[in-house]
């Protein structure tokens, strides 16, 4: 035996008890994940077949309810346009905060309000876009691009904050070297800072896109409706979350089955995006 005093049985018991409790809580946290994924696959995979992905919802009260082609096309288009707005905007703001505004009061205020935007519920963004763009009938009533604007507002703070963190990691020596060699500031940003930070920027943007792709509430007030496949951003457009929401509320078995299939498709899309983001991140970490 060692010279150290042995730990009393009571303390040992307490230690064991709390360690098991912590392990138990961790496993408990995974129960919903397992249940959700299990239910999704068992109910959703049954709905999947070729026609499920190649037909539009028919809207008929009996018989074949149709598939989710228009919803998938709509989600991809709306989210792509949202990303095209939010990613450059967000990275631009992050570049300002890191490259030009570092330590200034203005940059501090901007950062504060970006944080404020992070906390704004998605439904409020939806309302805002509805008030500003839909009610005023700019370019028609409900249109897909307005949905993209709402999603972009949602993605913007996420892109900005994650980009800022990554840009701060770019070593200052790199910037100074380039400046000392006579490169103008904009060239330093374009040729040194951005390429160095690229994998992190891609990861942050993809995660923001993945988050926005599953949002329902902002689209409810903006892109809304239309069952047929459409590539017209100036008109109404279907999307996976809206399709699921409508099907659930009708509460008919065949529509609910389609909702499960659509939900599985949506989760697979989001997981793929998340996976790509993680791979990019890992690759940059090992390089």
């Amino acid at each position, binding site marked *: 035996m060692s010279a150290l005093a042995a730990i009393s049985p009571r303390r040992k018991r307490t230690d064991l008890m709390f360690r098991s409790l912590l392990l138990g809580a961790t496993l408990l946290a*995974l129960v*919903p*994940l397992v249940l959700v994924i299990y239910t999704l696959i068992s109910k959703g995979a049954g709905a999947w077949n070729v026609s499920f992905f190649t037909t539009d919802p028919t809207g008929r009260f009996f018989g074949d309810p149709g598939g989710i082609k228009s919803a998938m096309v709509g989600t991809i288009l709306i989210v792509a346009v949202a990303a095209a707005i939010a990613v450059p905007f967000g990275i631009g703001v992050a570049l300002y905060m890191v490259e030009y505004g570092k330590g200034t009061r203005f940059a501090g205020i901007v950062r504060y309000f970006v944080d404020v935007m992070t906390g704004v519920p998605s439904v409020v963004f939806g309302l805002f876009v509805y008030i500003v763009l839909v009610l005023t009938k700019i370019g028609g009533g409900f249109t897909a691009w307005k949905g993209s604007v709402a999603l972009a507002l949602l993605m913007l703070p996420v892109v900005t904050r994650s980009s800022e963190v990554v840009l701060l990691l770019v070593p200052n020596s790199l910037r100074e070297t380039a400046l000392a060699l006579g490169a103008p500031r904009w060239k330093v940003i374009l040729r040194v800072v951005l390429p160095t930070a690229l994998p992190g920027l891609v990861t942050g943007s993809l995660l923001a896109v993945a988050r926005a792709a599953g949002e329902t509430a902002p689209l409810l007030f903006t892109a809304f409706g239309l069952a047929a496949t459409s590539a017209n951003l100036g008109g109404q457009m279907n999307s996976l979350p809206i399709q699921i929401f409508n099907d659930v509320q009708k509460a008919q078995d065949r529509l*609910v089955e389609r909702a499960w299939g659509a939900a599985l498709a949506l989760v697979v899309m989001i997981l793929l995006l998340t996976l790509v983001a993680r791979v990019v991140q890992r690759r940059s970490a090992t390089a």
Partner: protein
Amino acid sequence: MEASSLNARGDRSILERSPLAQLPDRATKWILTGLAALILVIIAFFFIRLYAEAHPAFAKFGVFGFTFDNDWNVSAGIFGALPLVVGTLITATIALMIGVPIAVATAIYLTELCPGKARGPLTIMVELLAAVPSIVYGLWGVFFLIPKLKPAEQWFSDHLGFLPFVGGSVAGPSYFVAGLILAIMVLPIVSAISREVMATVPVEHKEAALALGATRWEMIRMSVLPYSRAGITGAAMLGLGRAIGETIAVTLVIGNAPVIGNSLFSQGYTLAAVIANEFNEAASNPLHRAALIAAGLVLFVLTLLINAGARYFVRRAERMGGINAAKGDAGARVAAPGAAA
């Protein structure tokens, strides 16, 4: 600047760029600053428009009356949002009471106890909870959780009716189910931020506790938890902000009854759910629409206050971490919004 770069003859210094070559530099700076300023403009505009559109409701019922009157009656044109505010607070409270202890326990387990090999996969699995969209949780809640939980809830209600807020018949969709779903959605956020905060606990504190003979749990209780208390509080508040604003999942499982239910298992309504649900019928009724937008404004202000509080706590934890980190590890940094996790 101008003067110093001129030589005696008034020409440019040979090291200075021509005005034309300076143009892209200036343009970049102004464009980027403009983008940053645009964010402030959007938020100011956001607030003003929201207030202006909500004004008819506030003008009719008063800001105080709208928020705290217990009568939401669309057909009578009376809009008092108290049932919605109460529903929002009840569901968020349930979510925090269930979600935060589990999230913090998960964070402690993953940072302090978990064997190295299992840590990565377990962390990813907890984070995956955040990747499932709100609508999918709603779908799962309606067709899986509600039918499966109902017998258990009814048993609970029948046998433990002496407890406050328990008893009576179980509705199916209820405050409790909504709170449970919110707990699941809040869990990964709270857990991620708690983990980051716990990672900033100086290793000296932990080693000192262990060297003095503390068991693992005693070390956690005496050095990890006190050190990360502020950060965990902040994490819980960010979770609260998320729970309050969550819309679609709650709309599907709360029952959408605009009254204050008398038990945990009765149907209710939340601010966010009422907006999503009544939005369509409100399109033709300006007062109804104004009331919904006012509900959005109340929600916005509520989340604003909560998030400001959360940021205060997380930043305090960050600063505490910063003081110790200055000695060695400068990378200890807490990302305030866990949304990217």
